[in-house]
């Protein structure tokens, strides 16, 4: 048990005793006609998954319907080729839509869930493409009674197949770069650049899809398929290109200060104009692009480590790779492009009176913002469990303790190497009403896995575990 070391006031930064209320603290005063938090449409994960499954069922069944209607007896290779091809084409457009950064998806589903779905779907689509190609060659071989090599040569000589083959090869290169073993060797920047080839691959295979036997002769389907692709590309252009450019012009973000937090961690304060229009919330993140010669090419996702204000945003960066290391010494005044806000781990997810926040390492950044801003009425509990190796590795210690004192919240530091602190019994000891809480979780993958298993085993319903995992 420690004695609180900071005063009862809270905010960002914790104001010194007797200090006059500055422009930032005045934001905490009641404002006229506030907008509802996180307003805007949100698509729930179940809705999105249902739409994907229904679409996949329709697309996958269509070739079977055509095959059954035809005069020929059903043959395995052609049917497999057609079904796999249609599903692959649908899967590609779904993968693009998941990564479109559309706010309804980002706020409703969450960036980490979308990324996980994208990763799983990517493996599935690549498998379907390979099955489609293999089955198509096999079907050709059977129909012409030729050997596989001749059939392959003839298939590759078909109209549009050269571009399609090139697109498929690019897709395979991207897939190879996403394999875990390869990904460990690639920097985030290289992996990101490699991933951009996907757009070229999709463009090269698009006409092949429209000219496929399952769509030709069905003009409505061809138009619908083409519209699906062009609309998803418009969505990508809108949210991944135009929106950041608009935000750059409107908000004119620049680095205001860089504060060392210790152990390779810095907090970067970014100032700008009209930041209230972003409607960012604690728990969310932006993709930041710092316009220096070394860092302008890549955007990195970092959470807000303090509640946003009308003029300032704060992110906290730990040097984990080349890009984040370069940000340790970013110069004050550097122009910044911020794409976002993204993420669904906000107060809007809360359903219960009591809240448990669990953070590990630099995962404290979104939790620190939530710890300050989650609504807390009398009779409600707000608890933060912060896992760190040692006390000197605890980030924002003064701020956290000030917030805990001022809000009547509980703060536990879980220090050292005790493996039992994140077990169900260990968690229940500190938070007896854990099954009746909303749990927000952010931390390194192994710790997050341990906590996820422990809270579910302790009786927490899965829908009340809110987490975002960041890994590329």
């Amino acid at each position, binding site marked *: 048990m420690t004695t609180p070391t900071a005063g009862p006031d809270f905010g960002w930064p914790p104001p010194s005793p007797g200090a006059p209320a500055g422009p930032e603290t005045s934001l905490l005063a009641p404002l006229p006609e506030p907008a509802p938090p996180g307003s805007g449409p949100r698509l729930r994960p179940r809705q999105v998954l249902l739409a994907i499954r229904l679409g996949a069922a329709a697309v996958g069944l269509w070739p079977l319907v055509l095959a059954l209607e035809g005069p020929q007896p059903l*043959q395995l290779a052609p049917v497999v080729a057609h079904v796999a091809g249609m599903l692959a084409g649908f899967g590609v457009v779904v993968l693009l839509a998941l990564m479109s950064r559309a706010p309804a998806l980002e706020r409703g589903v969450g960036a980490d869930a979308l990324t996980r779905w994208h990763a799983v779907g990517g493996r599935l689509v690549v498998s379907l493409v390979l099955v489609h190609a293999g089955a198509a060659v096999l079907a050709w071989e059977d129909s012409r009674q030729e050997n596989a090599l001749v059939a392959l040569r003839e298939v590759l000589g078909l109209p549009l197949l050269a571009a399609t083959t090139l697109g498929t090869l690019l897709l395979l290169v991207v897939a190879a770069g996403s394999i875990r073993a390869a990904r460990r060797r690639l920097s985030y920047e290289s992996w990101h650049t490699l991933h951009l080839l996907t757009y070229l691959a999709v463009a090269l295979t698009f006409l092949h899809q429209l000219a496929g036997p399952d769509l030709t002769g069905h003009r409505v389907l061809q138009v619908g398929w083409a519209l699906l692709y062009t609309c998803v590309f418009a969505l990508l252009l809108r949210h991944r290109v135009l929106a950041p450019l608009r935000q750059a012009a409107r908000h004119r973000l620049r680095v205001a200060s860089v504060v060392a937090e210790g152990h390779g961690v810095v907090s970067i304060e970014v100032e700008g104009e009209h930041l*209230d229009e972003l409607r960012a919330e604690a728990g969310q993140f932006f993709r930041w692009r710092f316009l220096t010669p070394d860092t302008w090419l890549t955007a990195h996702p970092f959470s807000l480590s303090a509640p946003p204000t009308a003029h300032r945003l704060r992110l906290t960066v730990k040097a984990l790779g080349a890009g984040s290391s370069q940000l340790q010494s970013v110069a004050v005044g550097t122009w910044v492009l911020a794409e976002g806000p993204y993420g669904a781990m906000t107060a809007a997810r809360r359903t219960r009176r009591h809240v448990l926040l669990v953070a590990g390492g630099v995962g404290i950044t979104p939790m620190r913002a939530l710890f300050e801003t989650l609504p807390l009425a009398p009779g409600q509990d707000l608890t933060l469990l912060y896992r760190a190796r040692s006390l000197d590795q605890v980030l924002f210690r003064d701020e956290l303790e000030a917030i805990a004192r001022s809000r009547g919240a509980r703060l536990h530091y879980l220090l050292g190497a005790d493996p039992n602190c994140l077990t169900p019994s260990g968690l229940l000891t500190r938070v007896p009403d854990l099954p009746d809480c909303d749990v927000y979780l952010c931390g390194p993958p192994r710790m997050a896995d341990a906590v996820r298993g422990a809270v579910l085993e302790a009786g927490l319903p899965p829908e009340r575990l809110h987490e975002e995992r960041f890994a590329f």
Partner: protein
Amino acid sequence: MTTMHQQLSEPRPRRDACVSVAEAVGAAPRCAVRPRNRRQDVVLALTATALGLWFGFGAPSVSPVAPPVPVASSTSVGSEAAGSPDSAAAPAAPAGRGGTSRGPARFGQQGRRR
């Protein structure tokens, strides 16, 4: 293992203004979307629709990549195919964008269309 725990003996009520960040910063209402941005969005949507229609209506109506009908099978439906086994086994003639054949396609039959 060290556990540090701190809690006020009497929880203080939170500040009323700290309901959410969006409220705290006076988030802009949805109607604050700038007219210029809205115009850009409309232009983008119309362009995407026009491109989709162009691609869709310009797509070939006969598949250039349909698998040929197996020789053995084609002879059994020779009366329908109205063609020799050689022509049945040949791949479809590539139909350029906006091809002229308008009949409904059948699975496995596209290769016989001329």
